[in-house]
């Protein structure tokens, strides 16, 4: 499989000289196509900063990030928009759906922006909605839906353009456990049906256990890596818990 994401020695500093904070400290890793990767860490460990840098919302202080063969750390502003709309899909903790649009319009929006013909938009939205089980809420507005439905709509929006990389920032953070489980199933499906490469940031070991691979971050550094291999989800979950225990009290507040 080709490498979809390649991160090389990235660093990110915040603040001025006196109160310098190292949010990311020399992190390197790779994600190959079709992988479902989770990044785990306590709050303040730098995981969200890492995601923001990958999604080009934030810039790194040093180092390189490649998506495909494109070095996105060197892209200009206009090219960044193009990159985001064509190569990336987003799922956020707070859904980030446009509250003025219906689900259908929300899902169709990335396609509209790319000027895809209406006919194709219709087909693709319908297909995605079918697979994610949100056909009946297509004409509803975000405020009329439950959190789980909203997150599935957001997931549909993230994959509708068939992006190289889907970034998910605490996707289950705002959901109850049942909805969370449903969403994670959906992500798994995206991973298999759409062959989407998913990079998910979470502090929740249960959520992380759905991934195929988990990277642990502590104080801006890569701390440990786990591969699920042929483990069952439960076994993998226990392995993750072990690492968290190893990490100490830092992550325990997440449980």
């Amino acid at each position, binding site marked *: 499989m080709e490498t979809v994401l390649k991160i090389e020695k990235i660093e990110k500093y915040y603040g001025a000289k006196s109160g310098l904070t190292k949010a990311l400290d020399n992190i390197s890793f790779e994600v190959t196509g079709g992988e479902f990767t989770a990044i785990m860490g306590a709050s303040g460990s730098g995981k969200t900063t890492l995601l923001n840098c990958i999604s080009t*919302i934030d810039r790194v202080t040093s180092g390189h990030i490649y998506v495909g063969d494109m070095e996105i750390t060197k892209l200009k502003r206009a090219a960044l928009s193009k990159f985001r709309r064509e190569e990336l899909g987003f799922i956020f903790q707070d859904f980030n*759906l446009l509250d003025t649009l219906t689900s259908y319009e929300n899902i169709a929006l990335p396609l509209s922006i790319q000027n895809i013909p209406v006919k194709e938009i219709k087909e693709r939205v319908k297909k995605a909605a079918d697979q994610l089980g949100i056909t009946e809420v297509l004409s509803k507005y975000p405020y009329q839906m439950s959190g789980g439905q909203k997150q599935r709509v957001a997931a549909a929006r993230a994959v509708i353009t068939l992006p190289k990389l889907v970034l998910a920032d605490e996707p289950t953070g705002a959901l109850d456990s049942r909805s969370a489980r449903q969403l994670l199933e959906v992500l798994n499906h995206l991973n298999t049906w759409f062959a989407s490469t998913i990079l998910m940031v979470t502090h929740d070991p249960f959520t992380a256990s759905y991934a195929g691979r988990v990277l642990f971050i502590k104080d801006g550094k890569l701390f440990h890596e786990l591969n699920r291999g042929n483990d069952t989800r439960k076994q993998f979950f226990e392995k993750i818990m072990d690492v968290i225990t190893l990490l100490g009290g830092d992550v325990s507040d997440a449980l």
Partner: protein
Amino acid sequence: MLFKLSLKNVKKSFKDYAVYFATLTVGVAVFYVFNAVETQAVMLNVMQKSGDFTKMLSGMLSGVSILVSLILGFLVVYASRFLMKRRKKEFGTYLLLGLGKWKVSMILFWETLLIGGCSLAVGLLTGVVLSQFMSLFVANLFAADMTVFKFLFSRTACEKTIIHFVIIYLVMLLFQTFEIGRCRLVTFFHAKGKSEEIKMRNPWVCILVFVIAAGMLAYAYYQVTGNVENLHSAKAIFSLIIMGIVSTFLLFWSISGFAFKLVSIFEKYYYKGLHAFMFRQLASKINTTVCIMSVISLMLFLTICVLSCSLSVKNSMDSMREHLTPVDIIIHKRISLEDGESEEIMTDALGMGGFSYNEYTKEQLEGLPLSIKETYGAMEIDLSRYFTREENFYVYSIPGMTIGDLFEKMGEDMTESEVWFYMNKVLRLVKVSDYNRLMALSGKKGVKLSADEYMVMANLPDMVKAWNLFLQADIPLTVSGNTLYPAGNACREGFLVMAANYTEHGFIVVPDEAVSEMNPVYEYLAANYNGKSKEEKREIEKIVTLQDVYEYPESYSTWVSLNTKIDVTDAGMGIGGIITFLGLYLGIVFLLSSAVVLALKELSEYADNIERYQILRRLGTDEKIINRTLLGQIGIFFGTPLILALVHSVFGIRFLLYQLRTFGREGLLSSVLETIAVFLIIYGGYFALTYACSKNIIKDKRAS
């Protein structure tokens, strides 16, 4: 303690409060400025003279004042709702911490007191200052004499403002307390995520409402234009205004309903770029948007009408006055009377508007055969000292011949016509050389006349019509044996007496030879004052117009009639001046208010919009497309009310011009168009400014 909390709240979320505070302040200021118009109007010299003015003004303003109150009330409620929504979470936290609802209301009370008190004080101050500048500015537009700048403070306006806003604040407070009392705790925390509920309206209902509204408007339009002659009572006009307001609102309501439906049917357009987003943005606050659009549309309509009409009245009055008062003074005196005839001279004996008639007979007149200069001389006034250039000339008449006698030759009975009144007037003749000398003094072109021609001069519109009809009949006129034919078939514009508007019913210019053997009836003396500054001229005016009438023997002073440029100019300031002043003043108030409403709407939505545009950016939308969407959105928001306002204005201006028709119509259309052009530039500028500000607000703050 609670007061401290209120104080801290205001300090803490200053940005939100700033919008609120600004709205209230501007509201107070506009309200004061509007109500102070009566006091400010006194700035214009002439308005001190007319005592009835205040009464008439109050009557005229009461209707508009209701509208202003409504608009301001709407503004304040809108601003307070905006703030309440923003703060629900905060209130929720208080309640969660165990603060009673009553105590939360107390916090609100202190805050309202704080903000309300400050905004009232600052607003009143702003209003007082603003009203001074406004009336200075407006009064400056008048060429006429203006009193020296006076600082005017209107106590009634101030009291009215305070009472009005205290009531508004109290109502607002009650409303807020009620809202807090009604809400369950949970709703406070969900307040942010819940936007105005989006309900699609039934398109058929919308179309029905649209048809009704359009019908109502068409009826109102017809009433104020086609049927305007039958429109007399204020009640009828008032009901038409109400009809206009209601139908404007319904029109926006219905259009917003089915326009969205219509757009979404065209999927190819709707699902292209950010079109869906743009229309949803507009539709998301449809109720608020419809309200604001209606208010803006009505205010724009008022602004356009009031500004353009008052400016065109002013322009036309200015140019007319300039044209009708070419010299400083024209004096005339009867110098001969027919047997048995007597002359009535109207005198303002006390100089206070109490007119009396003086009558004198042929014997009296011929007993003292003095020219104008000799008459002044008898009063020990040497006119040549006061005049730079002067021309004197005579008016002749054919004994016993009236204008009516002349028209009779045409074979038409004019006694039943609109101009019957002038048919009894003596037909006046003026030598062409005399007339040309007057024209030369006036700085105007003279006329050419052949030995067998005559020419009619008039400017009273109805008589001009009558004369034209007469001249087309090509009827010869016999003056002491000479037969004269009309030169051309239309009467010329001309006058012998200076006035603020068209009053000359007509005299006839004839070749010099035709009247060489006749005795003149009147002597005329036209002259310019020998003074450079306004003050010098006013001094001369005082002397030559015999204002201290008691110093002179009545037998002399009452024999001359005169009219002067200064007098006409001052008089012209009367009703026309009031209209213009009011129009400009109110126009500016309306323009200001519309700007405030629009700005408030933009500001109050900025937070929601930042978030939405941030999402769009994350989805990878180009800045260019985002800006274009923003432009489209603001464009629709600005454009739609303007279009309706312009349509309204076409009819409104026609109606107003009909009502103001006595003020002359010279270049009315062009000045209306000019005003609208200037207005559009200002509005367009405001549009550009709003676009720039909104662009700045939604700009990606993180420099990526």
